[in-house]
């Protein structure tokens, strides 16, 4: 499946590029209102048309890519930063109290539907992009802890780990020097998947008003604003949705392709 890897990489890079370029240049100011130009269909002047305030949709999508990617990326960082050490710790103390505590803690977080976590956090701190990151990030922790623990457990049984133990290395050093590099593939693949899920989650949270607040541009909020406009000008709702689908689709393909490339044994994944 070389094709899926390349297509995934191309779509992902396109989204990253859109976000990156938007820092320097967008076709119009994404916040510039122009009521005279409202709800224009796509044209040479406005490639993807304008919304109900006459804002250029292409410019808003580029700026929105920034929000989506930043939120999802930091959330993956939180998940990895806390989850991987916890998973490694649990694996190193396999069968012990620490392992049990980490795994039951994971189950507990899993029992809260991610959206409910987000709602609770918003109830406490109020809606913002930062709290969306927190909500998505917390849910990423048990995912990475599980993947890290599962991967680490199978590495711990191998002979070269025995050799490292005989050489006098402690569990922490073995985890960092021998286990971590060997489960890096797994973590990268899972990272891509959580990245794509994070983009979907951010869009959903922003759509119901729990994510990025105006004036921060956001794909999810563009869709929320488009909802009442959908009969008059379907393009206002169609393009932000397409942006989400293509980015997430690209990341999923990339994740699949990377897994095949990095670890042929895992090829039969759902």
């Amino acid at each position, binding site marked *: 499946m070389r094709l899926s890897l390349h297509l995934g990489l191309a779509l992902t890079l396109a989204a990253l590029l859109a976000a990156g370029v938007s820092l320097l240049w967008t076709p119009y100011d994404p916040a510039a209102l122009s009521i005279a130009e409202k709800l224009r269909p796509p044209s040479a002047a406005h490639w993807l048309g304008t919304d109900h305030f006459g804002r250029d949709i292409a410019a808003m999508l580029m700026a929105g890519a920034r929000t989506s990617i930043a939120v999802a990326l930091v959330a993956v960082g939180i998940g990895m930063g806390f989850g991987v050490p916890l998973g490694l710790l649990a694996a190193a103390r396999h069968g012990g109290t620490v392992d049990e505590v980490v795994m039951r803690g994971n189950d507990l977080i899993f*029992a809260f539907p991610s959206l409910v976590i987000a*709602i609770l956090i918003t109830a406490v701190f109020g809606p913002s992009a930062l709290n969306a990151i927190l909500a998505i990030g917390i849910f990423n922790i048990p995912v990475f802890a599980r993947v890290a623990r599962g991967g680490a457990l199978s590495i711990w049984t191998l002979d070269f780990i025995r050799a490292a133990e005989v050489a006098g290395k402690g569990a922490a050093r073995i985890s960092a020097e021998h286990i971590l590099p060997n489960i890096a593939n797994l973590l990268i693949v899972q990272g891509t998947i959580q990245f794509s899920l994070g983009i979907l989650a951010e869009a959903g949270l922003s759509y119901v008003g729990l994510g990025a607040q105006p004036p921060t541009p956001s794909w999810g909020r563009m869709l929320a604003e488009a909802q009442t406009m959908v009969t008059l000008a379907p393009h206002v709702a169609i393009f932000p*949705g397409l942006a989400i689908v293509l980015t997430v689709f690209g990341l999923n393909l990339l994740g699949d392709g990377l897994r095949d490339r990095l670890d042929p044994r895992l090829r039969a994944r759902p």
Partner: protein
Amino acid sequence: MARYLFRRMLSLALSLLAASLVIFLVIEVVPGDPASYMLGLNASPETVDALRDQLGLNAAAPARYLSWIWGMAQGDFGLSYTYKVPVSGLVAQRLEVSLPLALYALGLSALVAFPAGLLAAARRGRLADTAVMGATQLGISLPNFWFAMLLVLVFALHWRIFPAGGFPGWDGGIGAGLAALTLPAIALALPQAAILARVLRSALIETEGQDYIRTARAKGLTRTQTMIRHALRNAMIPVLTILGMQFSFLLAGAIIIENVFYLPGLGRLIFQAITQRDLIVVESVVMILVFAVILVTFLVDLAYALIDPRLRRRA
């Protein structure tokens, strides 16, 4: 089996207790006093204090926690601060929308996923497999609320087959109720079906190299017969896990879809409750959702044991 059941029930009870503690502590730190919110800006400190007394807000936190879970254990979720009616009644009313919606979506999802997953596994590596895998990859990438908007655009506004939103209630007949839930259920179901079909496909493919499959083929069964009689049953464990997770997701995930279709479900209730600082409702609805997740996980665990006798003995 009895020991297995007992251990599972013990862990069910412990999870519920832990979850309730987490929810209570989170709600404790929510800024804003429900009593002053209910009485408005002009209320005197004495009236606010009297109301706090009446709502039981002046008691110490541990006492309030205990009375909260003790009440819930008896089916008493307290009184809503804003609606002044029992929370259990409010929730039951909303569940009339959310529960059928989740079940409807789960049914649709299984209806699409099983044939698709079986087809892809049976035609592995061929055109049908590639088509199913491509379609499901796209389905997974679909934000369900956007998909819902497209469905409304096509089936409600353009062709006018289904209502665009709102819920007439079950009193007007089951037909009208189901019609109102059809588009939301499709929007919820398709992305879930994509995941389920992929899990089923890979679980079926995983069985391929097993001895009992070879035996079944050797005694003369066709590939399709082997797959349905032998492989499917063995593939059910991962499929059930995902189905269980999806049911809880559908119950809670409907929160966003309910917004698209203006459905009076649990999601809308929790949103209103947050804006009105009706914390007891927030607390209880979150607890009920978490309870549903934990209960479904428990039931799936039991189902494993029914499907796979080996798990029963091991425990």
